[in-house]
């Protein structure tokens, strides 16, 4: 790729906006992250590796990524159905349902944590139906997945809605005239055009799950090696005045999240290029 300015535009302001963008991103994103990396390098490789390779750290990181991935997958399926229903059909109270999708955005995470714990606890509204089978929905991995799913739902729905609204009705009619069944129309005409949006939604829900802290600490039980998420471990380290330990976990999280999101973005970019019909 060649670095160059876009062609002459009637609207001025390229220099100004680029300058601001660089400054703003540096201040808000780059600077804190750099400080984090510097802090962790200051303690040397040996100490860093010792902290990071500790079984408790390893377990918590693995738990965080696994639960976030499962929650994002659940949301990709459930959120897709919700978005599909909200966009494609008209029904009473549609606006209310639509507004409800945003609730996880708006609620303070502590509030949602308490609410979820109350409902899913073995004496709670939903939890009591699982208790007889010895399935514990809270203070277990399930609890973490429930909280992450709750928090990630709007990301999938809100990224899918515009893509579904943009679907060309005539494309579906053309497919039907050509003899395609409903399933074939969905599989070969609709599906390829919404994959990019679905991937974006999945990536955002996944990232949101990785970063969730507030609601999970209420519902997970925070048992070391079992239900302790990485963010909590960082807090624990900080409370023990182990700043270096906390930052090294943070760096591991940072790098792995970046790599994961970058690859999802590349996948999404590739699929949307294909969609635009560029060979």
């Amino acid at each position, binding site marked *: 790729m060649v670095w160059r300015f876009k062609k002459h535009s009637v609207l001025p302001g390229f220099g100004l906006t680029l300058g601001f963008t660089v400054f703003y991103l540096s201040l808000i994103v780059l600077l804190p992250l750099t400080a984090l990396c510097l802090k962790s390098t200051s303690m040397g490789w040996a100490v860093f590796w010792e902290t990071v390779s500790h079984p408790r750290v390893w377990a918590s990181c693995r738990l965080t990524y696994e639960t976030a991935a499962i929650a994002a997958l659940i949301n990709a399926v459930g959120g897709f159905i919700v978005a599909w229903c909200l966009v494609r059909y008209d029904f009473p109270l549609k606006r209310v349902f639509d507004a409800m999708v945003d609730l996880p955005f708006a609620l303070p995470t502590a509030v949602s944590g308490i609410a979820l714990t109350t409902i899913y606890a073995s004496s709670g509204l939903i939890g009591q139906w699982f208790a007889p089978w010895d399935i514990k929905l809270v203070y277990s991995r399930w609890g973490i997945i429930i909280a992450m799913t709750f928090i990630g739902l709007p990301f999938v729905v809100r990224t899918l809605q515009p893509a579904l609204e943009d679907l060309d009705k005539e494309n579906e009619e053309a*497919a039907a*005239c050509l003899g*395609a*069944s409903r399933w074939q129309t969905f599989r070969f005409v609709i599906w390829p055009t919404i994959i990019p949006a679905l991937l974006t939604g999945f990536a955002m829900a996944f990232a949101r799950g990785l970063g969730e802290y507030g609601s999970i600490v209420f519902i997970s039980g925070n048992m070391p090696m079992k239900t302790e998420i990485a963010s909590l471990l960082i807090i624990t380290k900080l409370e023990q005045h182990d700043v270096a330990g906390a930052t090294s976990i943070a760096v591991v999280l940072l790098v792995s999240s970046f790599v994961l999101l970058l690859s999802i973005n590349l996948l999404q970019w590739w699929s949307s290029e294909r969609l635009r019909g560029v*060979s």
Partner: protein
Amino acid sequence: MSIEVRHISKSFGNFTALHDVSLQVHDGELLALLGPSGSGKTTLLRIISGLEVPDANPDSEILFHGQSVVDCPVRHREVGFVFQHYALFRHMSVADNIGFGLRMRPRATRPSKSEIRDRVGKLLKLIQLEGFGDRFPSQLSGGQRQRVALARALAVEPKVLLLDEPFGALDAKVRQGLRTWLRRLHDEIHLTSVLVTHDQDEALEVADRVVVMNQARIEQVGTPDEVFHHPQTPFVMEFLGQVNVFHGRVSQGKIELDDPFVSEHANVNVGSSPPAVYARPHELDIQRESTSGEGFYATVKRLHLAGPIARVLLEAENGGDVQVHLSLERFYELALQPGVAAFVVPKNGRVFEAASKMKLG
């Protein structure tokens, strides 16, 4: 494959799109549904295709070759449908678009991959886009896209071809070319086709028969010749070309004109007295002096000479505009200039009574 629809009505909420329409399309003909927007022509086409369901009515019937298809869903009706905005699948190459219908067939009737490739190759040749198979729709011009859409519809060997304003989104030059090409194609394959258009030139040039529609009803069905030269209603007269409307009367085969209508809208005066007389611009003559006492006095306002005929716009004494088309020879013989006074003399004209029509001249 002949098509027949009987007593079809369709409303969307309070809006009546079709009111008790019956129509027959003969086997192998190209029929044009012509009318202004909102006249119901597209709705009729979509009902034939099965994309739209007519209002429930025990008398209504849709027959393909004498067989009812009312309960047959779109995908089993074997209709080729071409949309105004192409509706190509943008994530598929041109070849994949054309082969889509074949690939979607159930395994038992699906052609093999190489058969599909052959069929697509033949169709690419038919639409004169050989070598474009690997391109994507976004890399084609509008005219090329519409030809691909047509090939895609033909690939499944439909029994009828339905075209919904297929050239509506294209510019005039491309449109003209595609129109001629479509007519040639139809002469080759003789597939029963219904074309929806609001462009009277297109309908008159391409179709075997024209159905003129207005306000959810069929006004007239006939060959292009018939509907142009023998319109049965003021609407058809007006829709198929320019027209002048006069107050006047007809006695013993002679037209006596009073004043031209200031408004060119014909429907205002049907049935009232004095009745309206309709004359196309080429059915009027201009004379410098009134020799026979016929005609009325008018002043030349504007001249359009760029074309095979001279188009003269005159203003009558009551302020109404009159359009007259003359041959260029006649025009130069008269030596007309803007501001010159002249007499407009009718050579031909029509009076539409409320129910019956009367042809004069």
